[in-house]
């Protein structure tokens, strides 16, 4: 275990590992998978899936490499190490073209605000002309979400500022499939986002309490499977420096 990792609080380690395996399990073998920029958790989750249950899934990196074999996990998902040993290069025009033809199975995207109907805000908070927060923008999200077979949104915080009744601006929406947070897994149903399972150590009340949009309380609350010993071992091997915890604040 790297020195940096040793200094992380226990709850961050638990949440990071739970999120990594939960994201990873959503990938099926043979799928073509994409993640956005600044996405260390999805990156690790995809490498974990390739290492375990989905060896033939293909990771298409936003910077253009396919299935790289980095010698270490870089902190930034734009690091040139993510070109090392790549099976091929598939640059942005090709990638967006593949999205448009329905050729990408899954995209992991972030969001600053998300509402029950799956509208994601990456643009601004508050008044558009004098925004309280100016967000980085959606990148390709506005064309990815309607075109990819399914989108999984992830975020390392779960609170009412993130999960809102209605986004201040809908930067992107479309084929949302799941949402993964530090405390729960959501699935998008015809009614909107609903609780699929609550992570071990958390309660459905905590989830409802920290979600800004209306949620149907499940009659039976499923618990997300905790990371198995094998999953934790694979994570440790893949990411000894704990890059998967980069986005957590504590």
């Amino acid at each position, binding site marked *: 275990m790297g020195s940096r990792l040793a200094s992380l609080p226990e709850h961050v380690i638990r949440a990071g590992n739970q999120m990594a395996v939960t994201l990873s399990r959503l990938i099926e073998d043979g799928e*073509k998978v994409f993640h956005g920029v600044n996405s260390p958790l999805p990156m690790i989750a995809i490498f974990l899936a390739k290492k375990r249950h989905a060896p033939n899934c*293909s990771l298409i990196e936003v910077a253009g*490499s*396919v299935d*790289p*074999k980095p010698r270490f996990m870089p902190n930034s998902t734009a690091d040139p190490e993510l*070109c090392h*040993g*790549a*099976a*091929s*290069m*598939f640059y942005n025009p*090709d990638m967006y*073209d*593949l999205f448009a*033809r329905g050729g990408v199975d899954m995209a992991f995207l972030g969001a600053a605000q998300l509402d029950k109907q799956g509208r994601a805000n990456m643009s601004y908070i508050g008044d558009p002309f004098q925004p309280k927060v100016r967000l980085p923008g959606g990148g390709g999200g506005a064309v990815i979400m309607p075109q990819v077979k399914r989108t999984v949104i992830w975020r390392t915080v779960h609170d009412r500022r993130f999960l809102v009744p209605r986004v201040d601006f809908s930067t992107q929406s479309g084929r949302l499939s799941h949402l993964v947070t530090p405390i729960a897994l959501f699935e998008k149903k015809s009614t909107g986002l609903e609780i699929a399972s609550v992570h071990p150590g958390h309660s459905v009340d905590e989830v409802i309490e920290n979600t800004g949009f209306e949620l149907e309380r499940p009659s039976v609350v499923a618990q997300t499977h905790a990371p198995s010993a094998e999953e934790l071992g694979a994570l440790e091997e893949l990411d000894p420096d704990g890059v998967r915890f980069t986005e957590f604040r504590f």
Partner: protein
Amino acid sequence: MEDPYTKEELYAIPALKPDWALIHVQKSDPQGNAQILGNQQFDVEMTRAAQKGVILTTEKIVGSEEIAAEPERTTIPGFLVKAVVEKPGGASPCSCHPYYGVDKTEMSRYMTLTQSQDGLREYLESTDESHAQDAVTK
């Protein structure tokens, strides 16, 4: 049709949507991660346009490590490829840089014979198929 932004009159050309792309390359790994050397003309675009996928013939099948050592050259990703056939000389009588140039004698024979239906049949029957090999179907 009218460009909604500039109001300029533009042409809209329908996309070609072939089912398959058949491409001959210099090097591929068994997964179809492939490199074209020299001019690539429309080959890469064809691999992207094919709806069902790509069938590769290749001068040689090499290990994935050899392909992965030079990712910038690997413009055909294996995830688009459905089958790889090792077929040295597979582009002949056309050229395959840097292995061989155009076979002018054979090209003349082709161009002469294929002017008629009978000649086409003769050409096809007389063409050497001894190199045919089984496809590595993924």
